[in-house]
């Protein structure tokens, strides 16, 4: 039996694991088959303290993993499938195996939210994408669209601009209020990047690949067509919370938080983007991971 089972292996999950193992708690991390979370799909992180030259997202995650493993965390690279959270000890199913823990930290983060427009689903991997660091080189000298208005969309656009002929950022709103000033400056000074505001994609057209999109102007409702080779989706993200049946969520699926870091079930804690929809940052997630771990220690002390 584990003292704590941490579901998720992004900055929240691995920071929690560093704290719990240092507190001599027997710790299991259900890391998921794509361990390391969202930062695995990024390039240079410039705002994580301690790295004045920046650090590559995957390198940061590998370092966190090594740190957690160094203190004794066990890591299973399987996806969480279900859990019984009625009473401690809790039962967790992952990769066809059952694990039992006195406490649980849910740190499953968020996932890509697709546009849900006609023509999108069948072209994922054939021009529709959600990871510029993975797929940008396939769009060398091509024209692409990035959908979204936050920093994530800006980063995708900047990466794509290294390869593509032209990058168009399509955003529903009139102005970019969700992106940071520094990001917007970089975007505006890049001659390959164009901003298309007050517009949304309503259909993706083409045979086996993306050939054009139908755009709707959100102010005038006017519909136009635009020839394009690729569509990168970077709109708001969807919390990975569906599988946690007994845990309270809000209408968007973010886990409801009671008293900083607790869920509605005693002994089940939550950390990171899966509950924190306002500050989806690696450093914030790591901070929540530390908080959840400290709460776990207190909870286990009480159980004795």
């Amino acid at each position: 039996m584990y003292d704590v089972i941490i579901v998720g292996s992004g900055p929240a999950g691995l920071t929690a694991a560093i704290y719990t193992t240092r507190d001599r708690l027997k710790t299991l991390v259900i890391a998921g088959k794509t361990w390391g979370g969202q930062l695995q799909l990024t390039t240079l992180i410039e705002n994580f303290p301690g790295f004045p030259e920046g650090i590559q997202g995957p390198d940061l995650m590998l370092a966190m993993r090594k740190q957690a493993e160094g203190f004794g965390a066990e890591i299973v690279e399987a996806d969480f499938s279900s859990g019984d959270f009625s009473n401690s000890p809790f039962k967790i199913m992952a990769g066809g195996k059952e694990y039992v823990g006195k406490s649980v930290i849910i740190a499953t983060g968020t996932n890509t939210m697709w546009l849900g427009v006609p023509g999108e689903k069948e072209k994922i991997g054939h021009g529709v994408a959600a990871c510029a660091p993975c797929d940008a080189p396939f769009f060398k000298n091509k024209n692409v669209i990035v959908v979204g208005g936050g920093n994530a969309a800006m980063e995708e656009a900047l990466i794509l601009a290294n390869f593509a002929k032209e990058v168009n950022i399509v955003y529903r709103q009139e102005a970019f209020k969700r992106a940071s000033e520094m990001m917007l400056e970089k975007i505006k000074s890049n001659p390959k990047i164009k901003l298309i505001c007050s517009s949304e994609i309503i259909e993706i057209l083409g045979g086996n690949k993306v050939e054009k999109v139908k755009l709707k102007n959100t102010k005038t409702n006017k519909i136009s067509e635009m020839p394009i080779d690729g569509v990168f989706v970077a709109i708001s993200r969807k919390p990975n919370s569906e599988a946690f049946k007994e845990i309270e969520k809000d209408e968007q699926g973010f886990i409801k938080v009671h008293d900083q870091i607790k869920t509605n079930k005693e002994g089940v804690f939550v950390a990171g983007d899966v509950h924190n929809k306002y500050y989806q940052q690696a450093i914030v997630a790591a901070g929540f991971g530390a908080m959840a771990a400290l709460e776990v220690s207190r909870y286990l002390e009480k159980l004795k």
Partner: protein
Amino acid sequence: MADLNFTDGDFKAQVLDSKELVIVDFWAPWCGPCGMVAPVISELAQEYAGKVKIGKINVDENSQTPNEYGIMSLPSIVFFKNGQPVKTMIGVQDKVNYKQEIDALLAS
């Protein structure tokens, strides 16, 4: 057993003209998720040795083949039967999913 590496040059002989089911892992060194799939593909190659030919192709060094098959996302795992691509699996997936596809194609 060392991993099998296909190239543009030997793709026809190794993959298209093969009598066996062939599984090709399209990858590149800059693709993070490719590194997560690679060990799974190596394990599958060992488990299905003699029944299925499993190998990978570096799309940085070989651009013709990925172009021909419309590969625009990595990793892409493509199953070839009698010279034809019959199934493509994109992104990192569970080993069980790959095994299910292989078993289904071997049975058909």
